[in-house]
């Protein structure tokens, strides 16, 4: 039933620097997760994408949200009913300024 979903998730986690990925439904429940990511994050990730959607409610193209912390990044994108969350980690702290 969910093998398509699993396939897509596996494809994502094989990408460069990617630690883990998950997909959440509109209830904030985890549809699937791959890699090193806690399925509980689906709720908060979904909440973040909903909050950002309030920023420009008239914009039809969904925004991509990226949270930076040292060499780690959390990328969130909502598309219709589904929210995708990806954890990324670069080997070196080249991403941005230090804390």
């Amino acid at each position: 039933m969910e093998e398509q979903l699993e396939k897509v998730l596996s494809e994502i986690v094989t990408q460069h620097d990617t630690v883990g990925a998950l997909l959440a439904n509109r209830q904030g429940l985890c549809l699937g997760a791959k890699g090193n990511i806690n399925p509980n994050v689906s709720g908060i990730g979904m909440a973040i994408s909903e909050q950002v959607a309030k920023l420009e409610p008239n914009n039809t193209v969904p925004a991509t949200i990226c949270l930076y912390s040292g060499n780690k990044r959390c990328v969130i994108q909502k598309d219709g009913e589904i929210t995708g969350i990806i954890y990324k980690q670069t080997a070196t702290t080249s991403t941005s300024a230090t804390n």
Partner: protein
Amino acid sequence: MSDDIKKYFNGLLHKVSGLYVIQITDRDGVPLLRVSHNQEKNVDFALMPSFIPTFTTACDQASKLGLGRNKTIISMYSNYQVVQMNKLPLILTFVGAEDCNTGHILALEHQVDGYLEDIKLAVTEP
């Protein structure tokens, strides 16, 4: 100390959009702490004498399914959703809108554990 806990739960309540009430009771439904939006929907049903004991019974029955101890029951209604967590001797109840972020409520579980310990002590002490 109790003010502290109340403040913390009020913060949680405001974090999750569409959440109306968080309440902590003992397993018989005796209220220990309750935070709610003042002007929001009337959700007093969550404190009705039959509400919590029904959950306790359902939880006990669900634990007999052979899947281990039941931890959480999520009930969806046309206008509400109720998430109840078995933290014996405490019962944690969340009441929210039907489209409220269920995943977010569930993720609160491990965050509140530390605060629940204090209340647990108050319940278990003779």
